[in-house]
């Protein structure tokens, strides 16, 4: 796991927790992220960094789905909360 993916995971978790709060939920059980093939992000690296970064957060144990898409986007599409 590199610092690069760790930083992106922290951005992901920050965004996710902001929207969790807004939704009135207490826990995130799943997230779907669109990863553009030109985003400069290696999906495997993000996938392996995520569980460690998510420990002790509201997204601990959540399932991360990385959807490869064309283009440059790197976007938290949706999540499931309870």
């Amino acid at each position, binding site marked *: 796991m590199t610092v690069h993916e760790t930083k992106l995971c922290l951005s992901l978790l920050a*965004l996710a927790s902001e929207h969790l709060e807004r939704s009135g939920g207490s826990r995130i059980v799943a997230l779907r992220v669109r990863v553009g093939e030109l985003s400069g992000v290696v999906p495997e690296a993000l996938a392996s960094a995520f569980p460690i970064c998510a420990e002790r957060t509201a997204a601990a144990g959540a*399932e991360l789905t990385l959807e490869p898409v064309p283009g440059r986007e790197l*976007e938290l599409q949706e*999540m499931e909360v309870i």
Partner: protein
Amino acid sequence: MCGTCGCGQPGEPRLHHHDHEVEARRVVVERSLLEDNDRRSEALKKRLAARGIEAVGLVGGPGAGKTALLEATFAALGPAVAGQAVVEGDCATDHDARRVEACGARVAQVVTGSLCHLDAHLVEHALEDLDLDGVERLWIENVGNLVCPAPFACGETRRAVLVSVTEGDDKPEKYPAVFADADLLVVSKLDLLPHVDFDLERCLAGARRARPDLPALALSARTGEGIDAWLAWLGAERS
């Protein structure tokens, strides 16, 4: 529809974690992970533009010739080097900062440690150490890396990506992301072309897959070949 418990509508894309005590709710977010960096980069750009400073980013693999290009550019600019400032990003050492300082440019070194790219936040902090009075151009030399700097704008107005002929002409095809956001492809170390199998057209074609209208030029920091075209792209004049 979830294959485990049968919840959800058939055909509806469904993430499969459920807490069966409580029904999970879907929350649509649709926001970029790069938002924070993009916001900082735009703010930085504005701040620099308000002072009449253009910021030029240099990106390329380790040893592609970024610092050598700065040295050649500063030599060509003559006394105008006094209006050039550089943010140098490296994992370790201040070697590059010393090199551009020796040319007469102002410099701030960012030592990134294990971080493989600069980002807008790091550049903001670097500028705290840099006196920008009288500066007309700020150079941002990213950490030597052809992959990781791609999605992280650093406040630059324009970004040039270097590929040296010794790296091989297939690099843009292999590492397309950084070319999608580039404003110029610089093929560097042109003096070494006779010694390597490097097809300029193939390199250009690869980069233009990522960005079809990408401008390109080839140069040698060693011999000075192509430096005039580079200065023209910059909008700078040889002294």
